[in-house]
């Protein structure tokens, strides 16, 4: 026990004495959490659009007013020039061009039907889809209000209409920060946990101090525990700090049990630092450790459903994500924090995490032995 303690203490001192490293592991991630959690949204606000109104009638002005009034769109240009709109779509200064043709009002009055053209910049991806459907809604509602105005006398002659109400489950206000904060926190814990532990033993190898440790009476198990313990604790501290920021700054709901979350985090971090150890046992230099960790961390993050939904991934990638510990931990932490899930609900992903932890640690310890022998 004492040997473990001394070695772990040495590691802690290494980190604490190095001011820059300490700042990198504690302050930088928290700043990132604060800043980056605001970035990940497809929310539509003040989308720049151009209106090309060839009709200049009361009806077309109604369209313009309705588009301007709902807060989603920001009309940056009303030049009636298709060439200008094309120019602006190409240089990206508008996301949508709305073209109201000549005879819009005439056609609307005479036939009851009139077209409006929406040119959406498809470069904007998902938000292009949302912009388009918002614009469509605005137009349809405007048409509805026109119809209503025309037939207000006789209640029996109202046109058929459907009133749509919407409700969002689990995240009623659709606050994406509630969703991103736990995700980014997990990402940061993973980067730091895996990278530091991977780099740590590789560094000892490079400097030659690993051989000195190998000739001491310390056993392999003790050595590994002592090496990993500080990073494991560091990860838990990151989680605590991050949750505090989440609660105080972002006001994220914490419906479920926090001790349960920490219990799962303890297992998850064993996986994260275990992977780091495994990497460091495989490589010879810190440079190699860095590239391998980079590769793994990238797969972890981009194939976890953290940024883009797993349901949208190619089928074979969806199967791959099943063995991704980040996916399971993100699922669990969101379930606990937002849905208030208890042990029963998270049992399945938790068991997968536990299995992964045992597997990774066994493999890593074995790998380390081969190298040391």
């Amino acid at each position, binding site marked *: 026990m004492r040997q473990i303690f001394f070695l772990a203490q040495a590691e802690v001192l290494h980190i604490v004495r*190095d001011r820059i490293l300490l700042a990198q592991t504690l302050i930088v991630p928290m700043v990132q959490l604060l*800043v*980056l959690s605001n970035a990940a*949204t497809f*929310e*539509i606000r003040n989308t720049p659009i151009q209106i090309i109104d060839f009709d200049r009638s009361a009806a077309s002005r109604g369209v313009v007013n309705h588009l301007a009034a709902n807060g989603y769109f920001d009309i940056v240009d009303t030049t009636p020039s298709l060439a200008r709109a094309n120019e602006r*779509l190409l240089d*990206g200064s508008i*996301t949508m061009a709305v073209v109201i043709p000549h005879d819009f009002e005439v056609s*609307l009055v005479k036939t*009851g*039907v*009139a077209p*409006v053209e*929406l*040119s959406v910049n*498809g*470069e*904007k991806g*998902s*938000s*292009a*889809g*949302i912009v*388009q*459907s918002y614009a469509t809604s605005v137009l*349809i509602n405007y*048409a509805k209000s026109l119809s209503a105005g025309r037939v207000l006398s006789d209640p029996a002659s109202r*046109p*058929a*209409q*459907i*009133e*749509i109400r*919407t*409700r*969002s*489950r689990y995240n009623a206000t*659709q*606050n*994406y920060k509630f*969703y991103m904060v736990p995700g*980014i926190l997990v990402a940061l814990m993973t980067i*730091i946990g895996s*990278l*530091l532990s991977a780099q740590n033993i590789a*560094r000892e190898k*490079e400097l030659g101090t690993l051989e000195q440790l190998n000739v001491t009476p310390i056993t392999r198990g003790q050595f590994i525990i002592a090496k990993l313990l500080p990073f494991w604790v560091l990860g838990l501290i990151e989680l605590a700090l991050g949750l505090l920021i989440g609660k105080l700054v972002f006001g994220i709901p914490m419906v479920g049990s926090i001790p349960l979350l920490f219990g799962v985090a303890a297992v998850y971090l064993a996986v994260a630092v275990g992977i780091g150890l495994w990497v460091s046992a495989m490589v010879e230099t*810190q*440079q190699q450790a860095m*590239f391998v960790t980079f590769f793994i961390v*990238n797969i972890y*993050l*981009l194939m976890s459903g953290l*940024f883009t*939904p797993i*349901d*949208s991934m190619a089928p074979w990638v969806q199967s791959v994500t099943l063995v991704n510990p980040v996916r399971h931990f993100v699922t669990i932490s*969101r379930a606990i924090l937002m849905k208030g899930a208890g042990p029963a*609900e998270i049992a399945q992903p938790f068991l997968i995490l536990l299995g992964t932890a045992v597997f990774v640690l066994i493999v890593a310890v074995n790998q380390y032995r081969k190298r040391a022998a």
Partner: protein
Amino acid sequence: MSALRGLLRKEWFHIKRDRRTATVLVMLPVVQVLLFGYAIRTDVDNVRLAVVDPAPSNTTLALRNRFAAAGVFRIVASVPRTEDLEPLFQNGTAQQAIVFDHDFTEDLGRGTPAQLLIITDATEPNTGALLQAYAQAVIQQYQLALPASPARPASIIVPVTRIRFNPTRESKNLFVPGLMAFVLTIISALMTAISLTREKETGTMEALLVSPLRPWEIIVGKVTPYLAIGFASVLLVLVEARLVFNVPVRGSIPLLLFEGLLYVLVSLAFGMLISSRTSSQRIAMMGVFLTTLLPNILLSGFIFPLESMPAILRWISYVIPGRWFVAIARGIMLKGIGLEYLWRETLYIAGLATVLLAASIRSFHERLE
């Protein structure tokens, strides 16, 4: 100059002798783009939809068929009561539900607003918003098609939508160019990040210091070989985007290659700057990881649109070279535009490269004294 040539030769030998590392460096971006090209997508299809229909009729059936025919939705369950939805949402069987009011059919016939509720799992708000928009669109299309009686004509505005530049709205067309930017920048920065710190740690730095090489020569000597490796990656990744993912390249390929080279140079210069300012490989690595990984995913516009971000974040995004290259790559590949539109982005990247290289030469200079 001959000293510089000597250094370049030395660095080149380093790379040539360690073929394995060089291969890994060139292939890493290629493999990552291949993997993530299949993973980073936001296409919404196969939405698991549940239907609550307390009083099935021809009308509700017609609307259900509209959903089934939209191509996006897959009706997974049809239950009589709203309460029955609970377990479906809890275990993820359903992502979305449409709930017909009991009197839906009668109300619609009478002209009283017929009630329809759309419930969406918004655990992930971004997808939630998309799903909600899609479902509303289906219902509105249905409503447009409802017959208006001849005595009281309704006003109908028909939105004709054209999606420019990516008409099929396939997200791979957007994300593969974005991924190129993401992967290339990090790998390039990592390559040079530890080049100087490593010399410091292993003690070979002193040999460099007593050589007749000037600081700028050392920096150039360190950066150039990696520039070659980075350029090889750019070429391969482009071929891959074209052949594997069928991403169109509508603009000029030489221009795209040139921009790619410039972008790799910026990233290498950034790694170099970190390396010249830190003393240990560990700090250099952490520095690069923390400053490139998440910011390049979140603030480059590669996944999340910059327009949606708060103004402060948009300001921060100006210093992220990825932001500019994502715009350039998408512009050339999807829009087919050239320097007449992209000169600002290009100048910006070039300027950033100059500043970063000058800063690393300078801080290297400071170390000498």
